[in-house]
């Protein structure tokens, strides 16, 4: 480890700085700053990618990026682009796409539907039902519409719940370690 340290120190500093940013943002939510909230959620969105395994046939080829679609939350999309900043997930690049109503969502791997797009959520979610696209929402009702992960703010901290049934219906695998840090996990038969 002693040898490990010096060579990786520059990278370490960079990562630490970035994570600090995330944590600081989390702390800043207390002021009700929407910008800060989206920054944390963007970081979480990226982190989700680390604990999710998509089936191989959901990608066009081995080099295809993981495409994150953001609907109704352009600020979050901007934050996400900043967060990703050229990093990869499982060897794949991460592409962020801002969506408008009616845009195709079938080729996405991760879809975030913001509060602004919640009116159209039911359509989108039902369209994606059974597809290998992880859906993330920030609405109380979203689970009943078939969302997989839903952000909540508890004690000024961003938390998330996970519904297992839609996850299982798609061919996506979510790591149990992610389940371990979820605020609530809705069982399959919920």
């Amino acid at each position, binding site marked *: 480890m002693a040898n490990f340290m010096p060579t990786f120190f520059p990278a370490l500093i960079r990562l*630490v700085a970035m994570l600090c940013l995330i944590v600081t943002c989390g702390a800043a939510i207390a002021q009700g700053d929407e910008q800060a909230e989206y920054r944390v959620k963007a970081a979480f969105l990226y*982190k989700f990618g*680390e*604990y999710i395994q998509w089936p191989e046939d959901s990608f066009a080829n081995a080099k295809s990026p993981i495409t994150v679609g953001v609907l109704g939350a352009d600020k979050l999309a901007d934050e996400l682009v900043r967060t990703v900043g050229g990093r990869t997930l499982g060897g794949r690049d991460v592409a962020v796409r801002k969506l408008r109503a009616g845009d195709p969502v079938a080729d996405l791997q991760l879809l975030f539907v913001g509060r602004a797009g919640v009116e159209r959520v039911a359509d989108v979610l039902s369209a994606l039902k059974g597809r290998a696209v992880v859906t993330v929402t920030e609405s109380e009702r979203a689970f009943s519409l078939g969302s997989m992960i839903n952000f909540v703010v508890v004690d000024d901290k*961003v938390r998330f719940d996970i519904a297992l049934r839609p996850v299982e219906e798609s061919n996506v695998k979510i790591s149990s*370690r*992610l389940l*371990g*840090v979820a605020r609530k996990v809705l069982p399959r038969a919920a």
Partner: protein
Amino acid sequence: MKTLVQEAASELPGVKSFLPRTLRAKLLGLVLGTSLVALVVAITAMVAYDLHAYHQGWVNDVATQAELLGQTSAPALAFDDAQVAKDNLNLLRFRPKIRAAAIYNAKGALFARYLAEGEEPGFPALPEADGTRVDKRDLIVFKRIVDHGEIAGTVYLRADYELYPRIIDYAGIALLVMLVAMFIAFLMSSWLQAIVTRPILAIGEVAREVVTQRDYSRRAEKLSDDEVGVLVESFNDMLSEIEKRTRDIESSNHKLALEIEERRRSEVEIARLNTELEDRVRERTLQLEVANQELEAFCSSVSHDLRAPLRAIDGFSQALVEDFAEGIPEEGRRYLSRIRVSAQRMSDLIEDLLNLSQVSRAKLAIQPVDVGDIARQVVADLRLRDPDRVVDVSIWEGMQADADPGLLRAALENLVGNAWKFSSRADKPRIEIGVLRDREQSTFYVRDNGAGFDMAFKDKLFGTFQRLHSASDFPGTGVGLATVQRIIHRHGGRIWADAQVGKGAVFYFTLAGDDSEEPSPSVERAS
């Protein structure tokens, strides 16, 4: 037993000056010492290995635990969920040896922590670099949490590090094991050492008995086939050899003693025989002397008695010739003359016999004499008696000797007289009287150039009445040389002769006890 223990104890290192004195104690010490060293080395090695294994194992264990905690807590850090991290840490209550744990976030701030029951709180303010270290009795581990290629935080673990208590425990166990092992080794070697020491002690015992009792027939019992067995055999062989030698010496001593005894007895016997012989010789000598005296007395009286009739024969023959010269024819006078010559010869013979008898009887009066002087007197007498003869006589000077002067003169009268007589027909008669000296004695001689004699008869030369020449050639009685020999023998000397017919004779004689100086030859001439 107590002394054995003490002596065995003295065998321990650093007590060299108190080496045990008995073989048993040395063996015991050897076994115990060796066992102790082996035990110490073995136990040390085992303990060292175990402690090393413990250290490695425990460090790996705790490090692995830290790694696991880190991996488990990575999502909690990623999603900023301290409660989950705390829950993870709380699982450590099933590892009571881990006394404290903490998770620091990527910024280095304390994110979650755990304390075992009864543990004093206390956490480092900042995480240290990756690694493990031992701080007194704590093992401290810092482990970076790397999540998807990024450092998410650091795990801190503080666990009990029981190396030192373990060492103390092991020391106690080792001491106990060693005590038990040494006790067992002591019992076993006390019992087993007899196998080694018994044959050696037996040899020593036998050797001591052999020395004190001088019994070389003793043998040591062979109890084993090892080196000690060989020693026993060698020892027994040596004893056999000594026994054999001793027996040889004793028998030769005995033989020698017998020989000495034998010799002593022989010497006694010889001494006895000698004494006896001496006695007998003395007795015989006495008898002989008596017989000789009787013989000589007889001879003397006979001679005297024979003289009277001879004198009568001679006297009356002379009277007849003188008184009746006319009445007796020429032939008768010639007979009467021959009667008288025979009577005269008889008288001479009797005279010589009387002389011989006197020589034998006379007492020796040994004194220093000059042989030359006596010889000169003798020669002077001869010249006086026979003045017509011309004889060249040479006599050496300084011929000293110890002898009876009267007897020596008688001997010389005979020898020189013979020389005078037998050289009468030589052309130039010559007589030499001298001495030959060597380291031991002086040999006197009388040499002439007269008739000599045949050496074939030299044995008869000194016999009484022995004559080598006819009376018509040289007159004589045949008693003279017998007389000379007797005189020389009475002096303890020897006489012998050397001669050649017609060339002369030499008579040599020695006188015992003669020790005179070298004479200077000088010649006395007579004309």
